[in-house]
């Protein structure tokens, strides 16, 4: 059997440079989309999972991964999309959540979706940190976000829904 020239950790480190196409301040690694790397006679296989089933960014992410690995000599490599286990906002790292906040997106409050998702929670304004905010629309510019407005600083902002 051929020996892999790169370890899983090294590959993850390389792929950490890839930003989420829709939220460029966080990487696909921080979002929890990178699940695993396997090695066989056919080469490397990177396992990724979609955040939302219809996420249009998945195609771009797949291409980005292939290009990045190619550039770093990790070849041949393929990308495999898996649904199991289903992605959850739990996998988003604390660093990612902090970055989202700085970017103006309120990070997901809850862990995995349970019934209390729809309870009236206090979503903190990422701009002035006020808790006095109101939901304008449960659906926003991308499938993963809702629209909110802060009653104190009056700024509108997006909230990354728990999933």
């Amino acid at each position, binding site marked *: 059997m051929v020996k892999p020239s790169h370890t899983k950790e090294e590959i993850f480190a390389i792929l950490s440079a890839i930003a989420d196409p829709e939220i460029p301040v966080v990487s696909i690694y921080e979002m929890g989309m990178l699940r695993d790397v396997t090695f066989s006679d056919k080469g490397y296989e990177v396992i990724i999972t979609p955040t939302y089933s*219809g996420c249009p960014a998945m195609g771009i992410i797949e291409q980005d991964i292939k290009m990045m690995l190619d550039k770093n000599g990790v070849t041949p490599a393929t990308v495999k999309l*898996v*649904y199991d286990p*289903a992605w959850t906002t739990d996998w988003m790292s604390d660093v990612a959540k902090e970055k989202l906040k700085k970017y103006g997106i309120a990070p997901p409050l809850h862990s995995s*979706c349970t019934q209390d998702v729809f309870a009236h929670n206090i979503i903190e304004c990422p701009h002035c940190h006020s808790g006095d905010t109101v939901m304008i*629309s449960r*659906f926003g510019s991308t499938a993963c976000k809702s629209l909110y407005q802060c009653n104190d600083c009056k700024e509108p902002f997006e909230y990354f829904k728990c999933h």
Partner: protein
Amino acid sequence: MGDDALIQSYRLSEWCSNAPILEEDLALTNFALDMTGRAQAMLSYAGQVEGKGRTDDDLAYKRKERDFYNHLIMELPNGDFAYTIARLFFTSTFEFFFFNQLQNSADTTLAAIAAKTIKEVRYHNAHAIDWVLRLGDGTEESHNKIQKAVNELWMFTGELFETEEVDALLRDQNIAVDMPVIADKWKEHVAQVLSEATLTIPESGYMQSGSNKGIHTEHLGHILTEMQYLQRAYPEATW
């Protein structure tokens, strides 16, 4: 399941730029996107199980009307906003209970897609319920419109719970869900929301049927004419 997602997605996409308010436009097209993703996952898997090398795109764009198995309710034209909301309420409630059970399927791929889908359907259903309550318990006009939609769609709801012999076989292997259980939960939940919305639950009467034999309303053909146009006119065209 793949066809249901595909056709429902198509109908919801038609609301793009036509919804009563911008937020609604976003919501309905967001749902359509979730459903397209689900259709991709389901149809890819169907092609894989079939083993003839057909892809999700092959199944979506190269099958004829009689080879589609989506429920009739999915293909009906959108009607007015109340009609679309009433349909979304019926279908998303069904999908909620359906995928909730399918998560435990012995087929791990179906279980994984279901686990993903249930998170999305929960949002679709919550949104539909919000509107059913608002329209039903709103003005006289909104009440009448949603009641009319509920009445007209009712005869298409029975089909959601129909099963065939093959379903029973799959059920025995713990792959498929237990339909009568889902039907009971659906009825109970629908009745509860409709009565809260001050709406009358239609009496059980004649129920439309046919989709599990590939027999459709005249509307599916029109959808496919538009959806499959490019592949028919320019076979194998890609982006």
